[in-house]
């Protein structure tokens, strides 16, 4: 087991190293001189050269890379050009809305998808199954920002049940925050539930026909116990995987939803950074999102260990 954990951990480090390198290279080879872009069209050649020297852009790429890695290892992602603070601070300030949005979205998605997916598989071919499968296809093809706009129109504008936009000001309590998160989380949750539902159904169909499910029935237990204890637990590995990947996608995919709902999250930060060519922020956000992705995958690998005794190496 220790070997399995070590292997996954080293794998995670390797992936992170590759990601860091790619992010570094992409930002350097992107067309245009960052210094020139930052200073705008009116800057003199002298100004640009000074800034280049200050940013270390006049050094050879290898030197820049080593320096970049060194900074990174100290947890330094550089200084934002427009926000007048370190990138890490900027990201940390925006992390909370994104974190809760992702968490609630994935909870809502799972709460919708798991029971429906399990029951659809159990009643394969029934009207319920067909309706669920069709609804899932529909949900998967809806863009979350569109659903978000519809939700705003109905629940916020027409019925006034939820705030239209924002995160309730800097001093708002948790309950107010929750109100602001409800609609975007619901929009993302509904859309993400589609994939989880289909995976749950497929995975359950796979195991419901297995011999040990028949054995469980032959012991004389009720159907609920057969399905939940014996079948669902065996179906869990692919389901956990897709839930984890969906969560990771949400972190990066919340960009548009955050914009629609005016949530001051990481997504929103990235959008404005891109519009202003705030390279250090873009670079830092990319790294953090990639790190989250890798961490979630690592967490899933560890969950396998809990679920399946055969996963040991």
């Amino acid at each position: 087991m220790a070997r399995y954990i070590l292997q996954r951990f080293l794998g995670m480090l390797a992936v992170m190293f590759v990601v860091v390198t790619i992010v570094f290279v992409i930002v350097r080879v992107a067309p245009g001189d960052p210094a020139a872009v930052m200073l705008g069209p009116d800057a003199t050649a002298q100004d640009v050269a000074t800034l280049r020297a200050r940013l270390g852009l006049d050094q050879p790429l290898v030197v820049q890379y080593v320096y970049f890695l060194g900074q990174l290892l100290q947890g330094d992602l550089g200084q934002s050009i427009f926000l007048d603070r370190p990138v890490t601070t900027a990201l940390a300030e925006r992390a909370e809305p994104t974190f809760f949005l992702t968490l609630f979205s994935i909870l809502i998605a799972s709460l919708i998808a798991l029971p429906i997916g399990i029951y659809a598989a159990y009643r394969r071919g029934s009207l319920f199954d067909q309706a669920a499968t069709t609804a899932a296809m529909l949900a998967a093809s809806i863009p979350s920002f569109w659903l978000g706009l519809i939700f705003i129109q109905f629940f916020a504008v027409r019925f006034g049940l939820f705030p239209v936009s924002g995160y309730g000001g800097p001093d708002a309590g948790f309950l107010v925050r929750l109100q602001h998160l409800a609609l975007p989380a619901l929009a993302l949750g509904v859309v993400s539930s589609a994939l989880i539902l289909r995976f749950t159904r497929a995975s359950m169909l796979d195991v419901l026909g297995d011999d040990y499910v028949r054995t469980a029935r032959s012991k004389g237990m009720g159907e609920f116990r057969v399905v939940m204890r014996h079948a669902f637990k065996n179906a869990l590995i692919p389901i956990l995987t897709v839930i984890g990947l969906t969560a990771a996608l949400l972190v990066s995919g919340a960009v548009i939803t955050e914009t629609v709902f005016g949530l001051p999250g990481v997504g929103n930060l990235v959008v404005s950074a891109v519009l202003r060519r705030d390279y250090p922020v873009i670079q830092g956000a990319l790294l953090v999102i990639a790190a989250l992705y890798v961490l979630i995958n690592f967490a899933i690998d560890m969950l396998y260990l809990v679920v399946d005794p055969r996963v040991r190496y």
Partner: protein
Amino acid sequence: MTELAADVVLQVEDLRTHFELGRRVAKSVDGVSFSVRRGETVAVVGESGSGKSVTSLSIMRLLAPPGRIIGGRILYRRRDGSMVDIAELPEKAMRAVRGREIAMIFQEPMTSLNPLFTVGDQISEMILLHEPVGRAAARARAKRMLELVEIPAAERRLDDYPHQMSGGMRQRVMIALALACTPSLLIADEPTTALDVTIQAQILDLLRRLQAQIGMSILFVTHNLGVVAEIAHEVVVMYAGRVVEQAPVTRLFERQKHPYTRGLLACIPDASRDRGAAGERLRLNPIPGNVPNVTALPAGCSFAARCPYVVDVCTKDPGPPLVAAEVAHLSRCWRHEAL
């Protein structure tokens, strides 16, 4: 409800289990009758598709849709002496019988145990489902069950997962599981088919000893007549959803009253017999053709197309009835006297 003879545990009467596949109907079991006495082993023999497994799943009421019992009775004497018709029993009442009074072991020991639970948990679960005992007591019993099926180091093995065990070990665990609540009837569906010959013999031997110890009845489903000779008292031969011959085991091996049974016996390779005059190996003796499709059975006897003794009457409706060819020896063949 009619009375059962005092020592009969299970009496299947004219059981019909059909599968509705769109407009066609597969008559997988079509009018099967036999009974099992206390402490007796009845073997149900036939090729795949003969309906033997569907018969056992019907008795357990574990048929997967669209399979359905559409007629007949499955009379069963419960442990308290009362009699029930399993075919009509409400699902909830059936659950108290299933596992506790009638237990089943399956063909595939490699896949019949849940890979995510320890064998101790899986045996304990059975006990906890049916008896008002605590976890510790259930675990202690699970350990005794493992000892009963002769698994060494039972205490340690309780915490093993199925993948840490061999096929033969797993089938022993399945037997321990099935016997955990001391059932009156054990249904064994090809329990040794997936095992090596040496392991096969061990498992049969174990079943025989446990039967003597516990006094349960066994319904043993198999296609292997060699196994039947080892373990059965009474043999029911099935073909295309019907019983074609039934007799006590010694009598059946001495004298077959149906060409199908005769063909099955001839299929068993015999190294000393299957030699020519110069000692060269002769070919195996398979029964030509296949079991007919139970959605479209031919007129008359369903074995006629493969039968070496076939005459005109065999292919005409109605087919032959199941009659007593001799005392306690039933045959469904027009020509049983000539055999």
